[in-house]
């Protein structure tokens, strides 16, 4: 049976995520409201100069399809309001977007839907990737609220960093969709990829009173501690 994944963000992180997941045989739905800009090309290597001005989601989907995968792109901003439509029957959700609020929204939605997910982020020389699955600590257990803007658009990022973090996120995602929960409830933190590629891997515990976990399907709550 073909597994379906929702990819939120078609940029520097979404690119390697989608290419890897597409090559692994997942059917992808990719959402991103933006168009490709020339300034993106140094870190969003899934695009070429010919893609400039075109919707990122559609061009990334085309790149996946060109490699034998199955994908469709939606030029839209992910919002909780239409997430149920976009995310219907998803087996996996991966996030590589640049908006702190959206990351929490995606994670909260995945927890409420009982869907495994990966949240990836990269800024400057490092980044992190967090894997979540029903019953494990969630993104909001780790961080309770979005931070003030610490984004590529404002803080910058070294081009290859997003490829590296996106690759790690894809590996975590493929593990989750195969049922491997080894890293569910863990975050991989890369401080500075110029100095070393070994992440700090921290497994954290569900936070009592977490509002996201409270909306999880009852059968999946705190399954690990039951």
């Amino acid at each position, binding site marked *: 049976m073909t597994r379906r994944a929702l990819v939120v963000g078609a940029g520097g992180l979404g690119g390697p995520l989608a290419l890897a997941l597409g090559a692994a045989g997942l059917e992808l739905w990719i959402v991103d409201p933006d168009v490709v800009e020339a300034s993106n090309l140094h870190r969003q290597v899934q695009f070429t100069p010919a893609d400039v001005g075109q919707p990122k989601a559609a061009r990334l989907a085309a790149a996946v399809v060109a490699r034998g995968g199955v994908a469709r792109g939606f030029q839209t901003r992910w919002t909780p309001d239409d997430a149920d439509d976009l995310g219907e029957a998803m087996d996996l959700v991966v996030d590589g977007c640049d*908006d702190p609020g959206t990351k929490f929204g995606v994670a909260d939605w995945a927890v409420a839907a009982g869907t495994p997910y990966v949240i990836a982020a990269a800024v400057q020389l490092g980044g992190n990737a967090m894997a979540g699955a029903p019953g494990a600590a969630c993104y909001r257990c780790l961080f309770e609220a979005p931070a003030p803007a610490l984004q590529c658009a404002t803080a910058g990022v070294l081009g290859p960093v997003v490829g590296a973090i996106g690759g790690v996120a894809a590996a975590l995602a493929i593990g989750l969709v195969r049922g491997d929960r080894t890293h569910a409830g863990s975050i991989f933190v890369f401080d500075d990829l110029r100095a070393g590629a070994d992440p700090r891997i921290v497994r954290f515990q569900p936070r009592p009173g977490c509002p996201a976990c409270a909306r999880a399907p009852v059968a999946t709550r705190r399954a690990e501690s039951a």
Partner: protein
Amino acid sequence: MITVRVPGPLRALTGGAAEVSLDAVTVRGALAELERKHPGVATRVLDASGAVHPFVRLFVGADDIGDLAGLETVLADRDELAIVPAIAGGAHA
């Protein structure tokens, strides 16, 4: 002597240093010493009431201080205190 791991977004306040070595007995003391050495860092970690911001987590080694004694967690020589903020980055969506 312990080592504080400074995340990228805060390194502008440490002169670009990814690590800061200092003497401290507790996590709270380490942050105070870090603030003395590099003014502005602690206010990015702690709110006005002195609590850790909800978008930051602190780890001693691989342990979340929330699972230890919080800011009063006692540090041993050569411990590593990591500041891990929530970040975005990737693409607008």
